[in-house]
Structures are given as structure tokens and as C-alpha cells.
């Protein structure tokens, strides 16, 4: 069930480890949860004008929202922009925001000039950099919180999903269209885990696959919101395509979320059922039911229940 990427190979269970020091645990539920995100990423554009809502219930919320989010980021192609450093920098707008990537760092900041009189050419962008050492450069709509961060690496999951082939482009021009709302510190704990295919020794930390926007980000794939403060942060930015509402406290905001795709993750170990009733009521009053198995090509594994429907936006 670990069918997530494009590369052929035997079906191998995915494994999760609590962190880089812990022993990985291989299990059958990990792959399908990741695959839900990837399926949604591929089908997101087919429900034009309607909002797709998928609700899944899990025995405990741990890792589920983050894995769905990672499946989504793996499945969303990077923005279709040219990233060849010299050609992008030659056309760069003065003071426009750009991201650049070299072997060790992601750099982000306003473009301050290209000096081709020197060899190699140098660019001024949050510091001075040799252009021939840059792997990719892309414009950014909005400035990033940090000017520089260590380059996120990918291993096992990068190879499995094929994102290793365009990793440089993904780092400078990610789709960045995912929001997760939930208990922020729990999501933070989840992100320390390491995901791998089978016995691969080079598993990927969930944080580097999801790349949430923080104070230290010079690039990012996703935004994370705390549900207890979410009311003050509405509305969500327009460029969010998938919102994952992680837990009953977040699902209460379902009616305030207008992104084209929404996933609600119910934790069945939590007694509060009012959020589930709210989702069922929305499905029954305004929703058009949708069969996830036939229309999304996704079947929930044992221990998970799922329902999907669309509503007019």
C-alpha cells in the first residue's frame, strides 16, 4: 500500500521512527494515510467550483494530519517557473524578492544586483554569492521570514516519490499551498518523526518533507496554525489549496475555511462528537456525497473510516 510515487518497485511497507535515534516501526496504516494526501494533490483540480471535503477518523490523531500533508506536498508539482540561475537573475527586478539555492543553503531576500564583470558572476541577494555555485533561483511573491537556512535534504521518501528529481526547483519555487490547523505543539512533536521506505537507512524527517513556515524559514511548503488562536487569524490566505483541520478543536472552523480542498482529521479517542456531527450535518444539508474509492482511487485501511463530499463554494 505504499504506492505513493511514480517509480516501480515491490510494495514495501513504510516505517516511522519517533526521531533519528529511535527504532523505526513498519506498519500498514502509514502508506495509505500518506497516499490520501497524494491522491488529493493529483485530483484537486477536478472538482472545479466546488469545495471538496474529506473527513477521516483515526484511533488517535498522531501523525495523521502531517502524513496527509506530506502526501500532498509530494504530489503537488513546484510552480512552473524557470529556475536557471543566470537567466532568472539577468531578468530580475530590482528589489524584487528571490530565493536561491546552493549546495548547503537556501537564501531569500530582495535582489540587489548582478555583477557579470567578474568571473564567476556574483549576485547580491541577502549577501553576495557566486552564481555558478547556485543550483536554482526563483522569484517569490512575498518575502520570507529568514534570509538564509540550511538546505533541506531528502532521502528515502524523496527517491520513492520522485521529488528528488526536482528537489532544487521545489525548494526555490514550492507550491506552498497547504495549511494545517491544529494543536501546534503536538504537530511540532509529530514533525520530529522520521519516515522511510522499508529498511532504507536514510529516512526523511517529517519536518523536511512538510517544511512548515517558521521564523527561520527562507523557503517553506506549508503553514501551521494553532486552533486555539485560529479565530484571530481568519481568513486564510487565498493561495491555500488544501486545509487540514487536525482534531475537533480545528474542525469547528470548517465553515470559516474556504480553500478548495479540506481534510478533517477526527481523533476517535477524544470524546467530543459535536465536530463530527457538524461535518455530517454539512454533508447531509449542502453536500454532494462522493465515493473516495472510485472517485479518488483511495480506500481507507483497517482502523480508519473516511467520507467525502463536495459543497458549493
Amino acid at each position, binding site marked *: 500500500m505504499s504506492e505513493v510515487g511514480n517509480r516501480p518497485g515491490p510494495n514495501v511497507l513504510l516505517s*516511522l*521512527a*519517533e526521531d533519528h535515534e*529511535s*527504532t523505526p*516501526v513498519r*506498519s500498514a*496504516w502509514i502508506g495509505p494515510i500518506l497516499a490520501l494526501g497524494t491522491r488529493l494533490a493529483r485530483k484537486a483540480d477536478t472538482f472545479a467550483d466546488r469545495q471538496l471535503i474529506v*473527513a477521516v*477518523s483515526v*484511533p*488517535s490523531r*498522531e*501523525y495523521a494530519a502531517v502524513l496527509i500533508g506530506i502526501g500532498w506536498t509530494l504530489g503537488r508539482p513546484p510552480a512552473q517557473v524557470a529556475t536557471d540561475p543566470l537567466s532568472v537573475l539577468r531578468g530580475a527586478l530590482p528589489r524584487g524578492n528571490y530565493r536561491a539555492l546552493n549546495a548547503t543553503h537556501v537564501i531569500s531576500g530582495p535582489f540587489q544586483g548582478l555583477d557579470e564583470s567578474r568571473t564567476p558572476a556574483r549576485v547580491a541577494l541577502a549577501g553576495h554569492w557566486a552564481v555558478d555555485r547556485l543550483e536554482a533561483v526563483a522569484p517569490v511573491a512575498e518575502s520570507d521570514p529568514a534570509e538564509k537556512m540550511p538546505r533541506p535534504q531528502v532521502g528515502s521518501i524523496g527517491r520513492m516519490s520522485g521529488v528528488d528529481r526536482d528537489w532544487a526547483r521545489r525548494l526555490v519555487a514550492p507550491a506552498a499551498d497547504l495549511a494545517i490547523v491544529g*494543536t*501546534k*505543539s*503536538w504537530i511540532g512533536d509529530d514533525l520530529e*518523526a522520521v519516515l522511510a521506505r522499508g529498511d532504507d537507512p536514510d529516512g526523511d524527517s517529517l519536518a523536511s518533507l512538510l517544511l512548515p513556515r517558521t521564523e527561520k524559514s527562507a523557503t517553506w511548503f506549508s503553514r501551521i496554525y*494553532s*486552533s*486555539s*488562536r485560529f*479565530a*484571530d487569524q481568519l481568513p486564510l490566505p487565498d493561495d491555500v489549496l488544501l486545509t487540514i483541520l487536525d482534531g475537533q*478543536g480545528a474542525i*469547528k472552523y470548517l465553515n470559516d475555511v474556504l480553500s478548495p480542498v479540506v481534510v478533517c482529521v*477526527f*481523533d*476517535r*479517542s*477524544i*470524546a*467530543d*462528537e*459535536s*465536530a*463530527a*456531527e*457538524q*461535518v*455530517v450535518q454539512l*454533508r447531509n444539508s449542502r453536500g454532494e*456525497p462522493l*465515493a*473516495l*474509492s472510485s472517485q479518488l482511487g483511495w*480506500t*481507507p*485501511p*483497517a*482502523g*480508519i*473510516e*473516511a*467520507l467525502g463530499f463536495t459543497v458549493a463554494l
Partner: protein
Amino acid sequence: MTSRIIGLDQRYAASASLVRHGVEIITVRDERGARFDSATRSLFRLIQRDGPGVWDHLAGAAKALRWRLITDPMPIERNAQLTAAAGEVGRQARQLIGAVDEDALLREIADAAAALCTRDPLVGAVLRESLTEVGPESAVVVAASSRSREALGEWLGSFGARVLTLGELERVDVSEDIAYFVGPPRFFKSAAVTAPRTLEVTFILPAWFGDRTVPRSAIAQYAEGGIQVAARIVEVGDALPALLEPATSETEPIPEEDLLPQPVWGSRVSEDRAPNADEVEARKVLLSGNRAIWLDDDGERIRALDPTQPPGERVGYSDVSAVVPGTYLLLREGEAERESLRARAFGRIGPRASVIQESQASWKSALIERLRGRSARDSESALRALGVRAAGQVRAWTSPHVIRPQSDGDFERLLGWLGLPVQPHFGHASLLRHEVHRATREQRDRLEAAADVADLHELERAGHMTLDIAEPGFRGMFVTRVLAIAPFTELIARHDARVPFADEGAQWLE
């Protein structure tokens, strides 16, 4: 400690196991319990005929005793709960003897209650046997309430078995293979079977309790892979009675729901009319600590605390429709929290406060005047034609609790529709909203800090606690669990809404 991921893996395995194999329900025939149940049902048939009133206290005591029989099956010598509850039934019944013309029934209820104290409850014996069979280290016992957990724990602790509430079972590492729930499935949240911690789950209850429904998750009915857990019923205990009691087949059976401890709601006293300007429709909400509030639903959320969340993320807001039994509300002594936030905001605004209050009052009274004499639908469509997006909220905007429409554009168009200049009303309302939001954020930070140092396990045990926040000029705050919400609304004075008061309505509740 078990690794988080191994623990999680076990949860998936346990959930799949219950879907595959179902749960076991052991029903224990106990003729003394059945006799009391039968007497209670006769009493309720009488109440169905005569209406409540004189019977209220006896009915409450009888329901409480039935509950104890199910949840507290300790041997009599260790069972002060059961003997006290049986004594109360006897006392209430004797008070009515002579006062109402049903002596035979009253004597039967009193005798049946007394007889319960002459033999150890069979449910307890079956529980004890089952534990011996599987070995106390392989089984965990789950009690229906923290009070029952204490009593069962004292009894079974020396035997080596863990006794927990469902909430505690959620939080601890679980290595046992089987969980024995003391009580029927409906006494526990659906998590007991949809998110089990053990590969096997067994419920033990008296056979006279008729409702053996196994709960399912709220989305199961519509879901792919919906979690439906089947039950196998196993009967043990006293011999089957030779004849079924004829009375039970003659009349409509009384649903178990009606025989569970319930709050005393009375019936609606308000007139059947729309609220006037100083009134709101509100439901009574019974709270832990013998208190209650009137909760109106004017669209404004109410402050709630979630003790299961980590520090810094516990204090939030709940939609009024999402307030259910078990929700923890944050309330201020003697006043509604929103009034206090308003007072803080005006305090910060200073000398201009009165100008702002007048400005708010003037556009709101213009709106009330404008709405008078035309239907809500007319006003809505008129506003919509002007491009007001949230036109459906027009009634809410008259409320003093709603400072202004959310959207700037909506507010400007609304003022235009009222024939009022945009300024100064727009600026005044926006300043007030800004200051109320600021007061709200500051207050949340204070409450988060107080929640961090509070003993939240004590809160879950006791159901309510005072929060230690010193704020000169403001009354104290407390957290309290919602016990029950009235099935009907009343018309109450607007200024009474959400202000806590003392109430004994929960006295017969578990």
C-alpha cells in the same frame, strides 16, 4: 515508556481487532436487582399516568440507586455508596406513605431497595471471577465515573487489577490485553469501542438493564470503512425466573433513557412569544459545583478551556452550538465575561468612551427603528442589493454584543442604508472592536498562564475550580464542566445571560 509509534500502532491494531471480532457483553441475572428495577418501573408508569411533582424526589433517588447498582458492584461491606442510595430510596418512599394513595407500591420499593443490601451484587462477583480467569495483570477495569473508579479501585486494588476511567485509559500506557467495562456500552463514550486500547473489550452489566446498544463513531453511518462493532451477549448469574412478569408485556416498556439519573428541568415557564429588546431566548446549562448559566445563542462564541490540550493552547472559544455536556466553560463570578472585556476596552479608551457608547447606541437604534415594521427578509434583500455580503446577520447587528459588521464594506453600506454618515460611527466602532480584541488576547494570555499552573487532573476529578488570576477591579474566574443542557429555552433578561448563579438542578445527576 512504550514508544509513541508502537503505542499508536497498537491503537490501529486494537481498533481493527474490535471491528473484526466485536465486543462481549456479559449480562448478569440478579433477582434482587431485577425486583428493584421492576418496582422502579411500576413507579414510573404511575408517574406517566399522574405526572411528576410529588414523586420527584423518590424518582430521583430510585434512578440514582439503579445507577449505583450498575456502576458500583462492590461487596456490601465495602459499598457505602449502595447502602446510602438504598437508604435514601427507603426514606423518600416512607415520607410518601400515607401522603399518597399508593402504599403497596411504596412499600415494595422500600423493601426491594433494602433487600439489595442483603447480598453482594452479582455483577461484582462476575467481574472478580473474570479477572481471576485472565489474571489481573492482563486485564484493566474501566469505571463509568471517577467516583466509581475510586470505589472499585479500593476494592480491586489489593487484587492487583488497575481500575481507570475511560479518560484515564486514554492517557496511560496500556499493556493489558482485555478491558472490562463496568456498565453498559451506553454509559461510556464511543471511544470505548471505536478507539479501544486493548485487543478485547468486555462490558459487564445487570441483565435487567435493557439497553445493550454499542455506540459507533459519529461518521460511521456515512463513511467508507465505517466502524461498526458487533456484540456477543453472554448471560450468567441467577437462574432464569420461571415466569416472565406479565405486567411488562402489557404496557409500553419504559425506555432506559427515562430511568437514568436526570437533572430536574421542570417545564417552560416563559410565555410563548418573541423576546422583546431586553430579552433573549436562552437554555439553562447546569454546571459542576451546583451552578448554572442561561446560555443564549446570539452568534457570539463563549470562552472554553480544553484540559486535554498542551500549555499555551488550552484557552479558546466554543460556538454555543458546540457546547455539550463535558465542555469546560470559563466564567466570571457575578458577570458575563463579555461585559468585563467591554469594560476593559472602555477603560483603555478613556475619556472618549462615552462618545463611542453614544455613537454605537445611535446607529444601533437607527437600525432597530429601520427593521421595525418590515420583515427580516425585506431588510436582508435590500441590504444584499446594496452589496452587503453578510446581510443575513442584520438582526445580530442590533445586539449590543456585536460591535459592528465584520467587513468594512458591509459596515459602510449599512450606515449608508440607515442614512447615517460613515464617520464618526465607523471609526468609533472600529476603535472599540480593536480594543475589545486586544483585551481578549491579553485575557487569553492571563488565562493560559493560570491554566498552566492549575492542577488540571484535579479539575477533571472535581469538575470545577477557581483560577488563580489576580486582576485588580475584576471579580475572579472559574472553570466548570457542563453537566447538562436544558431541552427547551426560556425568555430571560438580556443582562442575566451567561452570568453564573447557584442552582440545585443537578442534585440527582451522577
